[in-house]
């Protein structure tokens, strides 16, 4: 029974997301990791010496660091079987017309909504490892906003890049941050000038499209004082039989009185290890919001954090995890209150079905030097069947005075009475389940841009069709 539904689900994914475009790489390196491979990556990108050295040092750190053992098993990852760099287009395209048809087809099949096409001139689209398309919107240019690939930023905005790069997440942070630091390729660089308000969300689409290819994007965002902006990333990936690794690093700096929101929907195929380090540093009265949806992947480990370093800083995390078919969603958030009068909120919702496991793992830390801090943590787990499971690992380290920290957790099942109520109005079981599950995550979904919300609800529907027997 389960095999059938799993197959059905995979077929559906194959159809909707799992198509595979022929590989056509300009440069690709052999499998495995070595100083030579790293040097080649750096050379092909014509990087300055400091970056090459940074990569090589990071590789040494990667070798020394142990695999994390406190979470889900990562034993199946074989670093020797991963290809560390593929460059699909040799130059960044200036206009949409120059973008290869193959890549456009990919976006069409991904269903980039019609309404969005008019904005496509502003879309950063990553295809394999490098930004395939990079035409900045005139509006952004006028505002002095920088939104480009990391490679371009390294060439064109040297000072800014070097001032912030890897200062919040050093290579020594963890093994996968070290790996990313050594092999990073692609990702976005964003700089919002002082007092600049960017209305439209900055968007990027990521996609893994080559077997055994690790993706190590690196994103660096600086929202200068008094600015506000939103960044949205969405991922889908083809189905592969071999294990693939995604280890991104995202650094966000939210300066005094600035406001930044980083939204993510990730829907990797069921063979991918998604091990991401995301961190924001929030200055005086700054506001950082993470909105994070994790579906798919074999194992996800992701705990976006906010370092609240000056008074009045606020950090927020809204997350949804959807674990199915033996998937492990090990997600959460970390809020570090390092200054007085800082506040934070974490709302984490998870759904586990057909043997999926979702864990909430989080930390609220209030420094000794920080008084009068507030934090609220809310974890709600929904379990749809007996094979599925959920765990909560909340960690609280409170050293400051007069801190107000609350933690609420709930685990619930779909109530039979509610199912009957909805079915008595003419809905079949799948529809009723879809409504109840979608309703459960709605408080977070409503924070997403509309097209993502629609896509997410469609996905839930697809999932329910596969799991209601």
């Amino acid at each position, binding site marked *: 029974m389960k095999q059938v539904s799993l197959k059905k689900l995979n077929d559906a994914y194959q159809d909707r997301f799992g198509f595979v475009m022929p590989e056509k790489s300009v440069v690709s390196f052999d499998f495995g990791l070595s100083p030579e491979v790293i040097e080649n990556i750096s050379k092909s990108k014509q990087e300055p010496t400091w970056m090459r050295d940074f990569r090589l040092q990071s590789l040494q750190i990667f070798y020394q660091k142990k695999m994390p053992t406190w979470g889900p098993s990562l034993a199946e990852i074989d670093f020797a079987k991963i290809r560390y760099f593929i460059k699909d287009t040799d130059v960044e395209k200036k206009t949409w017309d120059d973008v290869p048809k193959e890549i456009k087809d990919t976006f069409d099949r991904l269903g980039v909504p019609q309404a969005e096409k008019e904005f496509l001139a502003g879309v950063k689209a990553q295809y394999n490892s490098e930004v395939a398309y990079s035409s900045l919107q005139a509006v952004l240019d006028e505002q002095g906003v920088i939104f480009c690939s990391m490679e371009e930023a390294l060439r064109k905005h040297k000072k800014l890049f070097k001032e912030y790069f890897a200062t919040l997440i050093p290579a020594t942070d963890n093994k996968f941050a070290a790996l990313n630091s050594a092999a990073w390729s692609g990702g976005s660089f964003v700089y919002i000038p002082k007092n600049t308000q960017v209305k439209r969300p900055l968007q990027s689409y990521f996609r893994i499209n080559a077997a055994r290819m690790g993706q190590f994007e690196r994103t660096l965002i600086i929202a200068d004082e008094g600015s506000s902006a939103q960044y949205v990333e969405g991922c889908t990936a083809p189905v592969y039989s071999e294990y693939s690794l995604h280890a991104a690093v995202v650094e966000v700096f939210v300066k005094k009185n600035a406001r930044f929101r980083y939204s993510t929907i990730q829907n990797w195929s069921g063979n991918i290890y998604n091990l991401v380090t995301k961190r924001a540093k929030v200055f005086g009265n700054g506001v950082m919001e993470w909105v994070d949806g994790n579906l798919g992947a074999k194992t996800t480990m992701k705990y976006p954090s906010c370092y609240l370093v000056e008074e009045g800083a606020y950090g927020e995390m809204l997350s949804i995890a959807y674990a199915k078919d033996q998937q492990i969603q090990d997600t959460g958030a970390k809020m570090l209150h390092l200054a007085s009068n800082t506040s934070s909120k974490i709302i984490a919702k998870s759904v586990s079905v057909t043997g999926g496991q979702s864990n909430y793992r989080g930390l609220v830390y209030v420094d000794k030097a920080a008084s009068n801090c507030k934090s609220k943590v809310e974890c709600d787990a929904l379990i749809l069947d007996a094979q599925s499971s959920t765990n909560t690992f909340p960690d609280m380290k409170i050293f400051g005075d007069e801190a107000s920290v609350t933690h609420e957790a709930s685990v619930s099942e779909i109530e039979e009475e509610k199912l009957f*109520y909805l*079915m008595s109005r003419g809905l079949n079981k799948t529809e009723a389940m879809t409504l109840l599950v979608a309703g459960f995550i*709605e408080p977070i979904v409503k924070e997403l841009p509309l097209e993502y919300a629609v896509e997410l609800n469609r996905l839930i529907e697809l999932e329910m069709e596969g799991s209601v027997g």
Partner: protein
Amino acid sequence: MLKIKNLEVSLNKKNILNKIDLSIKKNETHVLIGQNGAGKSTLAQSIMGNPNYLVKGEIIFDSYDLLKLDPQQRAGLGIFLSFQQVLEIPGVKIYDYLRLLYKKSHEQRLTPLKFKAFLKEKMDLLNFDAEFLTRYLNCGFSGGEKKKMEILQMLVLEPKLIILDEIDSGLDIDAIETVAKAINFLKKEKQSSILLITHYSRILNFIDINQVHLLDKGKIMANGNASLAKQIESQGFAAFLKEQI
């Protein structure tokens, strides 16, 4: 249209209903009265197909054997039950939900604009503010609002058989009149049949009824016309029942 024969219902091995016979013809309105615990809600839930109840006997609707059908199939035939205990469904926006209900119950497709007009007419009938459409289904509603939301769903579904389980409890007299108006609307426009379960006869001042059935301890003790309800109310259940024996 609805024929119940020799119905026996139990919940958790406890027998609740016995030897129930009841027939409702097209466009008829029947009233089921009885004290708390008499089994009125059990009968309503059994007709709708609540899987918690063990049901024996016969329930035939439009020549379909209901006992072989799931709740959604029964709803598909045009049966509607307004719940006595209305459930809150978090995160489900009322507009989206009602649109889904309309799609499930009607062959004809309406454009969003036409559906909005259709809905507005129904909501005006119930004095519902448009603001409700963006709220979550029944969440944070008062008792009266919940009952009215049940009636709004009924108006969207346009069912053939309407079972109203204490729709009038918790409603003030104005709200009762509003709800009665909605019921009469479907009676007239769709020739719907109605099974009205109630404690009080107030709502009967606004709706014409064909038959009254008195349920006590799981059995139907008396059948009659509208005057039976009045008689029972003036005498009280206990006294009336004593007289019957």
